[in-house]
């Protein structure tokens, strides 16, 4: 269970402060609330963006009326309309599966937000296999599409579902492989760690995209594959209206129909966010001096949270405001990057014509999979080659290796932390006062090493 | 009641038995394949539960990983066989594939 909720900031904080059982439940609730209220809004914004961008590309204005100048409430208005519509189930449909399918698609798309970090430590589940789990959950979305296509009892839907199944299953393979290309460089599947390692020294040098030629190409391959995996144009064969009416959602209407679109836009955001974490530095800006300062601040914050009182052996959970602000800034950076990539996807959709289904499949199976395999092989051999021939860990002449950088920044944070400790110790002489001022939680070593589940049952 | 090893083993047993019944009753080849998957999953639950509740350690999880991977391979081959069966018999009903009956 704790693996599911292994959060190292909010969950632990609540577990330590409130009570272990209810703390975790509370954390889960808070996460869910944030997900629904913040990121379910993201599709609405992106739908508005889509209409706006398409309008501008087609030399028209797009929505203008609802919500002030830019029609920015258009998405909400659409949602309101859709909720009011009748929830239709065709007579030929397999009604249980028909009703169930949109939920599966939606849950799979939104479930991935659980693993997507937004800033240093700001993640619901900081799993060591975050990337793996994220891709696994994302791949469940196809199930909803297939079930929708099958259960509608319409041949257009069946064709759409079939195409979708073939396309998504095929594109999952290059997606996973290209996502593994930067993994080879950093050596971790933990998305937080991956992003933290991309702190730049000078300008953009920390971004994994610029780490070596293979990651550079891999970014573009990944982005193409991710676009196809989200069944976005020019790969939107599952809902090609000129051929299949509406594809798998031909028979859907109202809220169930809109669930598919929420899922689609959520998935777009997730793959774009993943792209920015894997290739574009995550919440790092790319400017060396800013990144380093922010990283030191974040590490300092982590040290403050995990500080142990040397006399009592208790955790001192200090709240460190600069760290919080740095994380907030990081989130802004991250969301901007991801949104930019979503914008590019929209841009592509309204620029490029649609492919034929056999072209789509051939592109994937004959080109993208071999290319991604070659990239993976190259990314594996590159560090060995650089180490062997140039006798250094990177070809960049003046940038330091990833591991050294992290160690150095952590060292700086540790030093400033120690200095602050000393300062505090000098200012506040009596130990008991300190204990009163700061919230302290007793965590005996034996308990700390025992599983939370068994602890709860004792 | 504390959740212990027995609970998980019973869940595994239920899965296993469901798989057996599935294999024994479904005339659809795909259905039989699903029964096989259920049986394998029942066994896998046992492995992982033992890895948690006994001194087996990570070995149980590794074995279950092997099982999962091999089950995927088995599913691929079984589906290919099912497709061939369909090509040859124009049905997926396994009761029709009794050419070798004594």
């Amino acid at each position: 269970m704790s693996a599911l909720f292994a959060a190292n900031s909010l969950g632990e904080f609540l577990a330590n402060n409130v009570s272990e059982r209810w703390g975790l439940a509370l954390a889960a609730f808070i996460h869910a609330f944030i997900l629904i209220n913040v990121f379910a809004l993201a599709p609405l914004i992106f739908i508005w963006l889509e209409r706006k961008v398409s309008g501008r590309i087609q030399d028209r204005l797009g929505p203008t009326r609802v919500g002030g100048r830019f029609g920015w409430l258009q998405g909400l208005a659409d949602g309101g309309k859709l909720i009011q519509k009748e929830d239709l189930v065709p007579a030929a449909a397999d009604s249980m599966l028909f009703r169930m399918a949109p939920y599966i698609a939606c849950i799979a798309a939104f479930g991935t937000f659980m693993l997507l970090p937004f800033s240093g430590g700001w993640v619901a589940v900081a799993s060591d296999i975050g990337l793996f789990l994220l891709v696994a959950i994302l791949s469940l979305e196809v199930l909803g599409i297939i079930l929708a296509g099958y259960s509608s009892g319409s041949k257009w839907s069946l064709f759409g579902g079939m195409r979708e199944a073939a396309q998504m299953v095929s594109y999952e393979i290059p997606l996973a492989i290209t996502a593994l290309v930067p993994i080879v460089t950093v050596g971790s599947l933990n998305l937080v760690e991956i992003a933290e390692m991309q702190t730049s020294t000078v300008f953009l040098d920390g971004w994994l995209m610029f780490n070596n030629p293979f990651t550079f190409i891999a970014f573009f391959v990944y982005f193409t594959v991710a676009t196809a995996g989200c069944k976005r144009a020019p790969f939107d064969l599952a809902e090609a209206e000129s051929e299949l009416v509406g594809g798998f959602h031909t028979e859907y209407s109202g809220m169930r129909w809109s669930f598919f679109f929420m899922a689609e836009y959520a998935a777009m955001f997730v793959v774009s966010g993943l792209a920015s974490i894997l290739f574009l530095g995550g919440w790092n800006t790319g400017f060396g001096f800013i990144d380093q300062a922010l990283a030191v601040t974040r590490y300092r914050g982590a040290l403050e949270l995990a500080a142990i009182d040397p006399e009592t052996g208790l955790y001192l959970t200090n709240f460190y405001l600069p760290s919080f602000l740095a994380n907030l800034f990081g989130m802004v950076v991250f969301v901007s990057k991801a949104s930019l990539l979503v914008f590019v996807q929209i841009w592509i959709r309204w620029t490029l014509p649609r492919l034929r289904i056999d072209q789509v499949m051939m592109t994937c199976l004959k080109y993208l999979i071999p290319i991604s395999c070659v990239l993976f092989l190259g990314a594996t051999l590159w560090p060995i080659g650089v180490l062997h021939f140039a006798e250094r860990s990177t070809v960049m002449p003046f940038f330091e290796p990833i591991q050294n950088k992290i160690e150095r920044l952590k060292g700086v944070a540790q030093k400033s932390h120690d200095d602050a400790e000393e300062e505090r110790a000098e200012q506040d002489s009596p130990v008991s006062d300190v204990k009163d001022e700061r919230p302290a939680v007793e965590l005996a070593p034996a308990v700390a090493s025992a599983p939370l589940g068994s602890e709860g049952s004792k | 009641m504390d959740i212990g090893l027995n609970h998980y083993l019973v869940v595994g047993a239920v899965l296993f038995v469901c798989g057996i019944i599935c294999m024994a009753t479904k005339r659809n080849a795909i259905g039989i394949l699903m029964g096989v998957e259920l049986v394998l999953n029942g066994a896998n639950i046992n492995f992982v539960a033992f890895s948690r509740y006994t001194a087996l350690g990570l070995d149980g999880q590794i074995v279950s990983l092997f099982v999962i991977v091999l089950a995927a391979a088995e599913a691929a081959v079984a589906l290919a066989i099912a497709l061939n069966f369909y090509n040859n018999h124009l049905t997926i009903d396994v009761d029709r594939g009794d050419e070798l009956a004594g």
Partner: protein
Amino acid sequence: MTGEQFLFWLLALTTCGGAIAVVVSQNVVRMAFWLVVALGSVAAIYFLLHADFVGATQLMIYVGGTIVLLIFGVMLTASGPYVKIKTSPGDMVIASGVGVLVLFLLIGTVTAVDWKQAHRSLVGNEHAEYPPAPAAGYNKSNPSSGNTARPIGLKLLGVSLEDTDPTRKDAQNLSAGYLLPFEIVSVHLLVVLIGAGYLARAKRRVPVGADAVVETLAAPVPVQVGVYAGFWRRAAAMLIDGIVISAVQVPAALLMGPLTEPPSNAFVCVSSLLIFLYLAGMESSAYQGTIGKIIMRIAVTDTYGQPVSFLRAAARTLSRYLSGFCLLFGYFMALFTKRKQTLHDLVAGTLVVRRK
């Protein structure tokens, strides 16, 4: 009821319910749906058991992969959207009876064992903690996190992080690990992939007389279409090429330094590149073959008897490594393939034929 208990009962319910629904359903797609429910719940049970990597794998492979394949099978084989092949009620009753008996047997067996005592006698410590601590993850500061990806990876290589008990002598030692099973499973997967593709492939028939048609097309080197070069002839050609290459390489190596010392990386790289260019270049040239092939009167063509492009020749040269890596088996394939093709011939789609 603690959170764990609640989750367990919930998941047990969905798992067993899903499984039973699979049995009861008569529609194959519904069966698949309930199977997804059951298997997804099994993945959640793995998370509950601190086996996060296994759980993720279960999700990825079973729920994400196998189920899709199953639905594929359904769609390709069903003659209509609602195919129901009914089971006779008698069968159902008998199977259920036997199933219930087996279930009682299993439950009886499971509950008959005192696991706590069994664990303690197995460990050899009468006061061992039961249940034992979960297999510790990589993250030592947070043992309850269940991060098992790295320990499992290391375990596959034979490093055991979980045994920190200093009294156990072999605890920190390297063992053989699961590397060999891992490799075997990998090869097995590859074989299955190829085999499944072969079984499920669309059967195509090659038009009769394809060879005869292409014979009329002009080719720079007159070759005997359909007269494939034999293994020994090709081996001799390779031997000659080896002599030619070493006749250049060995003096060059002697210039670089004494032969007893390993050559420099730059030398290896340059000579590998030159050898590659020699092989691929000669085979795609108007000679259609290396010096050894010219001497042995054989030539490289594509499957239509035409000269090969440089790209194809390059692919052929690179896939020679493939032939070499599988214990030279790729080369020996020329002994028994129908058109005397080696593995790299098959990969690049080339033939080696006799010259006129």
